[in-house]
């Protein structure tokens, strides 16, 4: 950990908590199962995604991709492509304008969205198989795609580090992992382990995954002169994308605008700037025409990174009473030669159990592949698979109920940082879940249930994800007609951003939802952080809260200019926003409406824009969400076919803002976890570094037939440290899922599957 971070953390502990948000106890809109405000335009096909803007004179670009993972382009022949019908430009490293490499993704200070430091097209060096080597611009997409196939390339190939397994011996300890120490240790866990009564020592492997949002990535770029550009872009981070495009092309930040109101699924894959973003802007610049790049599905696999593969070891020691005495979690992930992202799989055990001696750490190796990136619950998804499978194995070793074993190791404080938990109700989540699921408590017996040729088993696992908050800004404007406009550059990619933010703002401002409008998805609005880390809802809510507090003071002062105002003499801490205006606390009938106050003052509106500070609270407290995942599987004894019979997720994620959309997010996470557990794997050819299954026909996402009914429940207990008492919930759902399935398969068959995906060959 950096010295600077240590100092800030020390300071955080002496800082006072923010006042508890009064909205924690309000229920007019918060906590209501409100239909999505954008529902109608989504079910009628009217919601416009980035490739779908009708632009006069739009040109279409297609990419050609390298077919080697490492080497040099010796020659590239574009003559035939240039002569093909409809082609107006072919761009290669020989004629591409110079572009800078964007700064790494960050939400602090000036936002940026770089996810790779690879030079795009400005080089003859190849560093991954699938690297873009040419852009073909034509008057139709079909013509551009066809012409791109006519480009002939000669490479001087070099041996690439194509294989993760081959790269592992060269792995090194990263400087830090997402700002944390790459390794934490206490005591001598190895010595404790060797002499322990009960030991579990397991190795796990997880394969690479791809996000595979159903909307392929797309950008439309339109230049206005030579110093101003507008992008319609599939972005989870409009502010970061705009600033990075400005950096890449040397433009003023205010001259780049990224518009992205609807994103057709992101899951982390649309958080950064990937090559197509800048190549669209480049092609538009070099042709003087508006240009669109809508990646093919294979194109998405080639130039947008996915989840790293991992190898992990979990070793647990425990005594007869079921108390853990030592915990070791270590392993390795891959990153590319063009980025620095050791995925944080070692985070979960840093917060989950009371562990007196531990060594928890990770190393990383470099491969010649597309840069890996965040994918739903990076770290926690694959980390909980290993940790929670090993915990299950230890419960069997102890002849103890797996839930009881976990409960015996519930920590009082964060086991590594020593911080208090801001809100942790794991026991309650398990209690509720076990009751509803019908969990049969006590030691579990393998191969104990059968229905014909099907072996039945139940499994349980803990899920966990941090409560992150990112620096974000929002503007709130209250008008004399009694309406409010809330603006932030935030993204909607299925979380229900508009709905949740409108619910929050209406509750905050004391207005009916119909009188509040939330504007988003545009980098020209106040900058929100990335829609990542399950942080967006709460991050923007805090900025809205702070802006509202400014407006309350301003409106009160305006009201009090009138000598007869019922608010005369009231201090700002004696009034609240309610009843479409300002009221005295505890006396809701004594107040004045925004309309009255503003009209009387001769004002059209008042407005405030606020930017939140860094999340000090997460340094002072251990802030996390938790889940208890329950499932039942059946495994066919003869064929090895595995089906999931039923699922229950019991969540402890602070207060739920909208039960309808929240349940969808939880289920969505669980379903992506089912894919991770059962079918998903990005297959790299270790000889060439090429992805072999770059299609939705061969990369198997879960389909209807794979998904059972999924029950969801939640503690709904507010976190006193967060706006509205809420946590983000976009990622917690996937965590613990693969372990719950693997544990259920063990219960059914007696086979402990430690390598994902759990395919039928592994249980036979």
């Amino acid at each position, binding site marked *: 950990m950096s010295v600077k971070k240590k100092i800030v953390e020390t300071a955080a502990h002496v800082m006072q908590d923010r006042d508890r948000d009064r909205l924690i106890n309000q229920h007019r809109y918060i906590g209501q199962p409100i239909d999505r405000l954008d529902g109608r*335009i989504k079910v009628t096909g009217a919601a416009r995604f980035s490739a779908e803007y009708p632009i006069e004179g739009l040109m279409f670009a297609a990419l050609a991709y390298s077919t080697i993972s490492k080497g040099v382009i010796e020659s590239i022949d574009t003559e035939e492509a240039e002569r093909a019908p409809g082609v107006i430009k072919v761009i290669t490293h020989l004629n591409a304008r110079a572009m800078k490499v964007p700064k790494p993704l960050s939400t602090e200070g000036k936002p940026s969205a770089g996810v790779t430091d690879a030079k795009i097209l400005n080089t003859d060096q190849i560093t991954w198989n699938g690297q873009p080597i040419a852009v073909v611009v034509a008057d139709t997409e*079909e013509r551009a795609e066809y012409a791109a196939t006519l480009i002939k390339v000669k490479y001087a190939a070099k041996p690439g580090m194509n294989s993760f397994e081959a790269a592992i011996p060269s792995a090194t300890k990263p400087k830090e992992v997402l700002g944390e120490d790459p390794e934490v240790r206490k005591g001598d866990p190895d010595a404790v382990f060797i002499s322990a009564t009960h030991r579990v020592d397991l190795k796990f492997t997880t394969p690479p995954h791809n*996000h595979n949002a159903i909307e392929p990535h797309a950008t439309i770029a339109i230049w206005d002169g030579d110093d101003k550009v507008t992008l319609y872009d599939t972005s989870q981070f409009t502010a970061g994308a705009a600033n990075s495009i400005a950096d890449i092309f040397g433009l003023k930040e205010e001259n780049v605008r990224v518009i992205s109101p609807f994103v057709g699924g992101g899951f982390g894959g649309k958080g950064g700037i990937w090559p197509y973003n800048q190549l669209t802007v480049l092609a538009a610049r070099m042709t003087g025409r508006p240009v669109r790049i809508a990646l093919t599905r294979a194109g998405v696999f080639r130039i947008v990174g996915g989840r790293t593969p991992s190898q992990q070891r979990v070793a647990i020691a425990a005594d007869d009473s079921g108390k853990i005495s030592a915990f070791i979690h270590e392993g390795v992930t891959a990153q590319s030669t063009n980025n620095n992202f050791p995925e944080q799989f070692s985070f979960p055990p840093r917060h989950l159990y009371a562990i007196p001696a531990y060594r928890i750490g990770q190393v990383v190796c470099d491969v010649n592949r597309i840069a890996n990136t965040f994918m739903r619950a990076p770290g926690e998804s694959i980390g909980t698979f290993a940790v929670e499978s090993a915990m299950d194995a230890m419960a069997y070793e102890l002849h103890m109920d797996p839930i009881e074993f976990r409960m015996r190791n519930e920590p009082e404080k964060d086991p590594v940082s020593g911080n208090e938990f801001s809100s942790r109700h794991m026991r309650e989540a398990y209690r509720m879940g076990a009751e509803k699921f019908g969990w049969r408590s006590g030691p579990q017996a393998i191969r104990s249930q059968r229905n014909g040729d099907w072996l039945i088993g139940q499994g349980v696992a803990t899920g966990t994800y941090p409560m992150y908050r990112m620096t974000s800004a929002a503007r709130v404007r209250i008008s004399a007609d009694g309406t409010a406009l809330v603006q932030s550059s935030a993204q909607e990619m299925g979380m229900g951003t508009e709905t949740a933010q409108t619910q929050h703002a209406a509750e905050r401002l004391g207005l009916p939802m119909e009188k509040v409008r939330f504007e988003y998805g545009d980098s020209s609005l106040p900058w929100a952080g990335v829609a990542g880390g399950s942080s967006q809802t709460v991050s923007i809510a805090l900025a809205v809260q702070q802006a509202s507090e400014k407006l309350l003071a301003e409106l009160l002062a305006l009201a009090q200019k009138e000598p007869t105002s019922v608010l005369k003499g009231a201090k700002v801490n004696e009034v609240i926003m309610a009843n479409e205006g300002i009221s005295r606390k505890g006396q809701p009938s004594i107040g004045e409406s925004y309309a009255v106050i503003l009209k009387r003052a001769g004002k059209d509106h008042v407005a405030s824009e606020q930017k939140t500070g860094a999340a000090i609270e997460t340094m002072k407290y251990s802030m996390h969400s938790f889940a208890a995942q329950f499932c039942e599987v059946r495994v066919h004894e003869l064929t090895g076919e595995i089906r999931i019979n039923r699922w229950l997720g019991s969540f402890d994620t602070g207060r739920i803002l909208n039960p309808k959309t929240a349940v*969808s997010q939880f289920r969505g996470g669980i379903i992506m976890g089912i894919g991770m557990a059962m079918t998903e794997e990005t297959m790299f050819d270790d000889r060439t570094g090429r992805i072999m299954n770059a299609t*939705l026909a061969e990369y198997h*996402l879960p389909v209807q037939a794979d998904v059972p009914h999924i029950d969801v429940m939640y503690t709904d207990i507010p976190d006193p440290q967060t706006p509205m008492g809420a946590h983000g919930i976009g990622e917690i759902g996937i965590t613990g899922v693969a372990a719950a399935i693997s544990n259920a398969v063990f219960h059914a068959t007696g086979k402990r599957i430690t390598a994902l995906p759990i395919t039928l060959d592994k249980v036979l």
Partner: protein
Amino acid sequence: MNARISLHVNGIDRILSIEPRVSLLDALRDHLGLTGTKKGCAQGACGSCTVLVDGERINSCLALAVQYVGREIVTIEGLAESGALHPLQQAFIEHDGFQCGYCTPGQICSAVGMLSEFRSGAPSAVTENGASPNELTHDELRERMSGNLCRCGAYVGIREAIQQVYEARKP
């Protein structure tokens, strides 16, 4: 070389000049401005391009536009009648049968086609003995909608929405 053709889409004849290799999907999206139909994979694997042709659901990415002259094409934009949502559209909202909304038009068109297939007695892979199915069971519904991927994972809401509409319209 372009072909000048007429497509009958959502009750209207639309004239367009396109190359014979243009898919029905791209013709709808890029030439007719009907972007409600989505492109997810362009190889018939995801179902987001599902439209109705003469009442049957097809993957428009696997269809060449020039083959569909004279056919009755209905896209998501043609499902609502004079501003009133189709019951499935309404049910998708009520049951939160989507998140990002990208696969949604394909899901809804697919569900319309699926329900009419089911009512006509067409068996599915899970129908006993290939006979005509009587009840739209959980397994029948899951099997028949498995050609439409939803990466946000709204499958449960999608099933609830379809089931509700099916039950309400039972003879």
